[in-house]
């Protein structure tokens, strides 16, 4: 099992990022990983922007693994009403190392605005390092294809969230077409972004087969490699969901 960065085992992990950069896949996998470590994680779908392909869709499967999933009151329904249930506050407030809470936030600054609602609690948790706010970045998304573009996107997310990012997650991928060279090529870009933002890279995400295709030397170049199985599937794909 690959090593998890200290930030990802904090009581509250907030997952933000540009939309389509892999937030939901990462949040789902992190919840599963923490459950596998014997913890009792909860996953909160805070996405008030995206109508489909959201972590709330996977709640039944996650429940079987002992992961509690919460989401907007009307998630998956025909109403575009971004109402969040009141008990999310309590979940965040009482999160602990053995029962961590992962917040899967909507894309961009528009999605991050939902965090403003929880600002007093989140800021307090951040001050005592009981909270990590990670930002997923994919350099194969056209609006964040370069480090300076990624920095712009991250800054607008931080400003809407009224919360500083604590770490970056390199989620550069082309879905099923991802290969080791794409991931390795992105390492220089994520390092440049991290340097500009004065932030650590806390994970680099890929599927297990991409990780295994790397030589041992190549794997050394990817600290905090994080393998995940693709969960967000299309209706005609043979998912295990």
């Amino acid at each position, binding site marked *: 099992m690959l090593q998890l960065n200290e930030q990802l085992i904090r009581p509250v992990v907030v997952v933000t990022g540009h939309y*389509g950069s892999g937030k939901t896949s990462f949040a789902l996998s992190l919840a599963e990983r923490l459950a596998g470590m014997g913890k009792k994680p909860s996953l909160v779908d805070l996405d008030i922007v*995206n109508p489909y392909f959201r972590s709330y869709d996977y709640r039944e499967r996650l429940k079987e693994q002992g992961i509690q999933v919460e989401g907007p009151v009307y998630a998956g329904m*025909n109403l575009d009403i971004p109402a969040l249930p009141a008990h999310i506050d309590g979940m965040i407030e009482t999160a602990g190392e053995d029962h961590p809470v992962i917040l899967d936030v909507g894309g961009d600054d528009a999605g991050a605005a939902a965090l403003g609602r929880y600002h007093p609690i989140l800021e307090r948790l951040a001050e005592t390092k009981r909270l990590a706010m990670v930002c997923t970045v*994919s350099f194969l998304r*056209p609006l964040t294809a370069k480090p300076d573009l990624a920095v712009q996107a991250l800054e607008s997310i931080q400003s809407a969230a009224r919360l500083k990012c604590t770490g970056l997650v390199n989620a550069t991928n082309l879905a*099923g*077409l991802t290969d080791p060279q794409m991931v390795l090529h992105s390492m220089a870009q994520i390092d440049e972004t991290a340097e500009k933002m004065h932030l650590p890279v806390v994970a680099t995400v890929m599927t297990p087969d991409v990780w295994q295709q790397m030589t041992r030397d190549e794997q050394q170049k990817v600290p905090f490699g994080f393998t995940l199985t693709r969960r967000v599937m*299309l209706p005609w794909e043979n998912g295990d969901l």
Partner: protein
Amino acid sequence: MSQKYLMKGNEALAEAAIRAHCRHFFGYPITPQTEVAAYMAKRMPKIGGTYLQAESEVAAINMVLGAASAGARAMTSSSSPGISLKTEGISYIAASDLPALIINVMRGGPGLGGIQPSQSDYWQATRAPGHGDAQLLVYAPSSVQEMVDLVIRAFETGEKYRCPAMLLADGMLGQMMEPVSFPDEIALPASKPWALTGTGEKRRPNIINSLYLTPSQLEEIVRKRFERYELIKQNEVLWDSYRLEDAEYMVVAYGATARICKAAVEIAREMGVKAGLFRPVTLWPYPTSQLAECAKKVSRILCVEMSMGQMVDDVRLAVNGTCPVSFYGRTGGIVPTPEEIAQQITALAAAKA
């Protein structure tokens, strides 16, 4: 083709339009196509283009009418209820012989309906995209890459025939992500001598209009337009097929549903039923003769849509009674699964045996 990116269907539509030299986008947000407008809002100001969020869908389509009159490559984008609001303007654009691109990322209807994927605007797109004797070119992509390719084609073909074009997608295509690439170079729009760009006192003024004072004049104009429609029917039909070579059962589907049907064809074949898929890519002009030709080689046809059955009319017209056509549909935002469609195919085979 150059660098590949992972893109949402809606973003790919917007980026393809920009690459195709469109610099005028007029819209109004609506789920599930809002990313088209959001992407345009971010990109257009950086490249000297116009992104304008109008006060309503009606205003947006009339801005397209104005920009297209001046020769600009212009577009708008919406989802089902928003398209209903635009239909008056679409009719005026067709009546003014103007090229423009209208994107419809369909959601459940009628009425306010819902925000989940649907294909229940087929009739509206192909039969009545506004009042009067008029047609739109209608393109139905079934992958994010095809969304890119067909946006470019829709602009070019629309300008060739001076006819508005619609890209008819559904919420699933708009929201899903796939790898895409863009052509390295896309030709600049051809010159538009009819455009309202000012005479410079060197020529007589051009006139763009949809009002004709005498019935005979209007009839003549409409007849001439229909001569152009005939040319479109001859030259611009697009379709695709999958495993039809030895198929006994032909599934007909378009858009995201065609992707699901492809998986269903595979399941049916694993169960020993020789199924294949016919996929119209242009919904108007419809691949009528091509479908009729394919129908000669099969014993049963199943049309599948995310609607109560709309394209099935065109399938029946094409086949003209030579082969039994049945229909399977889900509606209201429900996306059928490959398994339930495969069950429909195998049930047809069982009924025949």
